[in-house]
């Protein structure tokens, strides 16, 4: 099998992983000659699925001793198998990077022999890139479940970001679909990374110069739609991970049908709109001061699919409105549908010098069709009359479904709702 064949097998196996961001490492490693981490969010290409290609996202091998049902690489699947050598991955990364095809490397692996052995192989790639190639670009390593803490700490010296995948939102889901993976072990690994990050930061504060340790922090991925866990469970798990483990990002990956799918899973198209709503809700938790339980208002504990979560919240909490854009606090403004965090900042800035009318709001490119029902402006805003009417929902929701799918991708990235 030549490198091209291996690349096809091992990139194909990695395409279900949602995380792609290359941001968060604020400075480039000193002493590097090729590669930097200064360009936040550079996507070097896009595939027809609308997702960006920013990293060389591959598996070191797709052989695996685990049998997780949702995974195409589980041991009981008949998918074709391949294994890269350490040198092959190093060379591919460098050659792709030098041609400006990629922003860095995202390396994951099936588990071969033992967790520690597999982790050592991943570390070998990163270490070689840093020390022999003097590569300063982005490296994201996916830690292997149950790998020992000392190896995770070594990985953090070479990688910009580490991730430990939570995989599924609840312990019961894990038991059913990924019997080898245990929530306490997963969270134990995350806590190990968090402790080391905290320790590094404390040393920096105290004036020491500790070695770099995952400057871009840690992230995780959760598969959505493979089990019947409702959105509220997904979001509660996510907010717990943000607060307890201090994660930078939780990625939600709509369960996608996989070739060689396990018969225990239903074949279906991925629930992309649900995935998108979860990203929006995630944003509301992190940057808008919402709590997981208040965002999900529907009786079945799932996010509404036809309207965004902030609009859904506003419709269910009309007593909170209207909000006066010229007087309201930052926290209040953040809760207005159609006004994103950046525009809240702009509004607060502008109103120090002049008051805002509805025309100004349109100039700021707030989503006026949603916002207009909820705000007082300097001039008369006739749309406000609808605030207490029963048909407000039908007036405020997007006019066509197509439109919603259109803006889904960009707002999933920016999170503005």
């Amino acid at each position, binding site marked *: 099998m030549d490198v*091209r064949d291996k*690349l096809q*097998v091992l*990139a*194909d196996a*990695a*395409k*279900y992983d949602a995380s792609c961001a290359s941001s968060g490492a604020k400075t*480039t490693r000193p002493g590097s*000659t*090729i590669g930097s981490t*200064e*360009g936040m969010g550079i*996507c*070097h*290409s*896009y*595939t*027809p*699925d609308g*997702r*960006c290609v920013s990293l*060389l996202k591959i598996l070191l091998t797709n052989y695996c*001793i685990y049998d997780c049902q949702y995974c195409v690489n*589980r*041991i*009981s*699947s*008949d998918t074709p*198998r391949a*294994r890269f050598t350490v040198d092959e991955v190093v060379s591919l990364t460098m*050659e*792709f990077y*030098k*041609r*400006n*095809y990629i922003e860095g490397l995202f390396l994951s692996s*099936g588990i*071969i022999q033992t967790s*520690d052995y597999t982790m050592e192989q991943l570390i070998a790639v990163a270490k070689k890139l840093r020390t022999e190639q003097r590569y300063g670009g982005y490296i994201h390593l996916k830690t292997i479940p*149950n790998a020992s803490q000392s190896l995770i700490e070594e990985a953090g010296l070479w990688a910009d970001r580490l991730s430990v995948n939570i995989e599924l939102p609840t312990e019961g889901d894990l038991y059913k679909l990924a*019997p080898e993976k245990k929530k306490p072990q997963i969270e134990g690994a995350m806590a190990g990374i968090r402790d080391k990050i905290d320790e590094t930061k404390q040393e920096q504060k105290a004036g020491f110069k500790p070695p770099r340790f995952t400057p871009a922090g840690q992230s995780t991925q959760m598969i959505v739609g493979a089990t019947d866990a409702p959105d509220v469970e997904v979001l509660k798990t996510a907010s717990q991970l943000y607060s307890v483990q201090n994660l930078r990002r939780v990625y939600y990956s709509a369960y*996608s049908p996989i*070739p*060689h*799918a*396990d*018969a225990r*899973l239903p*074949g*279906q*198209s991925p629930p992309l709109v649900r995935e998108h709503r979860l990203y929006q809700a995630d944003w509301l938790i992190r940057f808008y001061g919402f709590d997981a339980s208040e965002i999900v208002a529907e009786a079945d504990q799932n996010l509404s699919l036809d309207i965004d979560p902030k609009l859904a919240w506003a419709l269910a909490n009309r007593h909170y409105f209207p909000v006066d854009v010229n007087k309201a606090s930052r926290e209040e403004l953040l809760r207005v549908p159609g006004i994103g965090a950046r525009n809240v900042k*702009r509004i607060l*800035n*502008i109103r*120090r*010098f002049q008051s*805002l009318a509805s025309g100004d709001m349109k100039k700021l490119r707030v989503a006026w069709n949603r916002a207009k029902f909820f705000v007082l402006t300097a001039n008369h805003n006739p749309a406000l009359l609808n605030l207490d009417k029963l048909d407000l929902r039908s007036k405020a929701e997007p006019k066509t479904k197509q439109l919603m799918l259109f803006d889904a*991708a*960009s707002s999933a990235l920016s999170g503005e709702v």
Partner: protein
Amino acid sequence: MQSIHVDTFDDWRDAARRLLASGVSPTDVQWIGGTERSLFDDEPSPTAADLGGEGTTPSVPKAFLELARYVASHRESGRWSLLYRTLWRLTHGERHLLEVTTDDDVYRLTQMRKAVSRDIHKMKAFVRFRKVDTIDAEEQFVAWHRSDHRILRLAAPFFARRFSGMHWSILTPDESVTWDQTSLHYGPGVPASEAPSEDALEDLWKAYYASIFNPARVKVAAMKREMPVRHWPTLPEAELIDDLLREAPARADAMIQTNEGFAETAAHFMPEHGDLVSLRQAASTCRACPLHQCATQTVFGEGSPTARIVLVGEQPGDREDIEGHPFVGPAGKLLDEALKQAGIERREVYITNVVKHFKFRETETPRGKRRLHQKPDSREIYACRPWLEAELAAIGPQVIVCLGATAAQALFGRDFAITKDRGNVMRTDWCDITIATWHPAAILRMQDAARQSQMRTQLVEDLASVK
């Protein structure tokens, strides 16, 4: 009315500084860009030095200078006068003008700046270096890129920092730049026809691009918004897009149609308590895979519940299936002998198989029907593996000996090669000392007598090594 020629941000800044110091109102200046001509083309327009007015210029917010630097790269001809008008307002009573993003002038400037920033961002993303041959041994990379605005000088320092240890050039129709690992050198514009046309690595890159695309999630509009079609000609992977899109529906359907495996595994039959007695009881009714339909009975592991060593075979054979005990047939006899020679008592160990039901094919022979052993497939192995894991958890052995490739691959993974790694001690998630050796049946089937006796010796040695 004064006419002023400017080409670059620096020209504009010098002129603007002097005009401002002389109190020239924006309505009294006509700004003319490098390629544009004024109505009075013959008259030499005054240069910055001619304008006089050495007086002190009032300070302007730093943010404005940065904004102006970006807007200066925009191709719109009105940019110079818009910048001067804004500068005038900033210094004539509207110091906080830039904060008022809803102001018409500020709004236009902000939009222009956004367009330039986006263009720079796209340049950082879509420049594609191609490796070219050079006389000296150093690698040399060249890219050709068409940007919407004149942004090369704003973007080049980024490439110098990122690719500092490389020789590279970026060619654009307006201007070109070269990095020699020390400094940036700017030169004239270059047409696309003079740029290198290929790189051997593009094939690998396209293979990656096609493989990372998930046909189950097509979103063409999102792709085109982020990767504008006008950049496609310089992106080698873009030529694959049509085909990928055409094949996507069929590929996604095929992904959904072809599932494999069984709806259940042994995990669904696990008893509440994980002791060996409960496990054996529960396993006797296991229906996780179809093998239970033809086999006589479940053949569960046997031996000491506190065994230090667990031996793991592939699956029960004909005799085992009838008697209900593991390793009682010809292979079992051979194993007994080998254990004895290695100095291990069979009653001290625990012996089991990866698959607990006999898999076979029936053939007609002159003397009646015969049941021929068939190797279990990966689905059957992994449907049954939870029993083995439960046995290992209940016993907690210090040593696991895998007999044959099937057992070894179930515990080490499918890339395990028994001919290569036989007898090597490895650590697995189940046990610190795990080794693999020949399956006794493989020794019995070996035709070559010398090889057979060698394998037998190795089996004994491997067993003795973990005694």
